[in-house]
């Protein structure tokens, strides 16, 4: 690895100062599972690396203001996979954590790293989109909140300015009559990258869908919601026919490319299949 200066802040304020001083030459280090391989192969050559592992606030999962949960950006995939509160109310997010890498990688890889690397295939993005999460960002000018749907601006690009830090994700509680599911397709079962990922979340009242969310990964430059498919379900009883119709509409929202992991047509096929499956599971969980 190329030489760099290592900064070890113990709180968010010192971290933001170190970022401001480092400018574009600084990189934040969370789990290292994306950053270190890119530094080892010379793709990234930061002059300054700022380690987030000493900042306790970033590793906390805590009740949010009112209902909901706050998940620190340096919470690991393994913590999401196992945390009781996350599993109880935000199961699709726990499922996405369980799919990342191997256990050795999941104990390092972080939620914030997955989001800030902003790969179109980021597994943790669709569940957060489907849960209407907000990104809490801090910088020299103070704190701001950005809906996760507006967080991604392009392939490997986000709304974060160079001197800003993603502190946590604020996720509203979807309520007791709500269920979610995240599924992805990969040729290998472990240590692979999603060809397509789909998260669905359904909320019910008196047998009618009050809120539907369907979010897609790896079918566009950024993770995105299939809003027409959502609207086709809201205000109705969720039946197999309506799920099939929503899956067709989700395909129309996808703008996939073809690459070594799958052709554009295969990706559209996967969107239809995974949307149907995740909606079916989300419905069963919401009804349970």
């Amino acid at each position, binding site marked *: *690895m*190329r*030489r*760099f*200066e*290592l900064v*070890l802040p113990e709180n968010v304020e010192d971290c933001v100062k170190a970022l401001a001083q480092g400018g574009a030459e600084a990189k934040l*280090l969370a*789990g*290292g*599972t994306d950053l*270190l*391989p890119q530094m*080892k192969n010379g793709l990234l050559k930061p002059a300054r*690396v700022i*380690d987030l*592992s*000493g900042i306790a606030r970033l590793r906390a999962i805590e009740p949010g203001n009112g209902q909901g949960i706050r998940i620190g950006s340096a919470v690991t995939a*393994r913590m999401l996979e196992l945390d009781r509160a996350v599993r109880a109310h935000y199961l699709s997010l726990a499922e996405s954590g369980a799919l990342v*890498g*191997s*256990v*050795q*990688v999941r*104990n*390092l890889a972080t939620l914030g790293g997955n989001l800030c690397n902003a790969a179109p295939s980021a597994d943790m993005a669709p569940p957060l989109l489907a849960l209407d999460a907000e990104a809490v960002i801090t910088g020299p000018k103070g704190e701001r909140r950005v809906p996760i749907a507006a967080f991604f601006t392009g392939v490997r690009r986000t709304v974060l300015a160079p001197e800003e830090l993603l502190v946590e994700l604020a996720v509203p509680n979807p309520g007791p009559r709500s269920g979610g599911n995240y599924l992805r397709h990969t040729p290998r*079962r*472990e*240590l692979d990258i999603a060809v397509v990922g789909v998260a669905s979340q359904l909320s019910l009242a008196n047998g009618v869908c009050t809120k539907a969310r369907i979010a897609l990964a790896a079918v566009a430059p950024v993770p995105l919601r299939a809003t027409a498919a959502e609207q086709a379900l809201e205000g109705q009883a969720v039946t197999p026919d309506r799920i099939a119709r929503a899956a067709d509409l989700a395909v129309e929202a996808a703008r996939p490319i073809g690459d070594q992991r799958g052709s554009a047509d295969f990706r559209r096929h996967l969107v239809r299949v995974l949307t149907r499956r995740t909606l079916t599971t989300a419905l069963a969980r919401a009804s349970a």
Partner: protein
Amino acid sequence: MAKHLLSCTVNDEPVEVLVQPWDTLLDALRERIGLTGPKEGCGTGDCGACTVHFDGKPIASCLLLAMQARGHNVRTIEGLGRPGALHPLQDAFVRHGVPQCGFCIPGVLMAAAALLTENPRPTQEEIRYGIAGNLCRCTGYTKMLAAITEAAGATAGRRS
């Protein structure tokens, strides 16, 4: 650029050692502390040969900077058992003749030991999932599964 002083616990012993900012934990263990049990296979977290326990949890030590271990507990294969008092997994690996070239074995043992700590009676599926992050280029997985299954029976029985 100045070296950093790394203070942590390795195999139950306090360790203080000077490291470069760009040293990984694996670099520090092998080259500065002299523990060569963890191996560098890929250096990118894909092969699991560098697996150590970090506060009891298995991690890829090639993906952690050494200084990120400050204040933490690290355990390597050298601290899992010792000659004459092998960990039940090591004992089972010897009796089943699991190692072929042996390069992956320290990592596999650390992954399996972490699995059995969290889940003393894993199913075959859970064992496979637990060592999914460890590649064996000799493809000696069948004997690994047999040895881990046997050790799981022994350790679970002993604890209950």
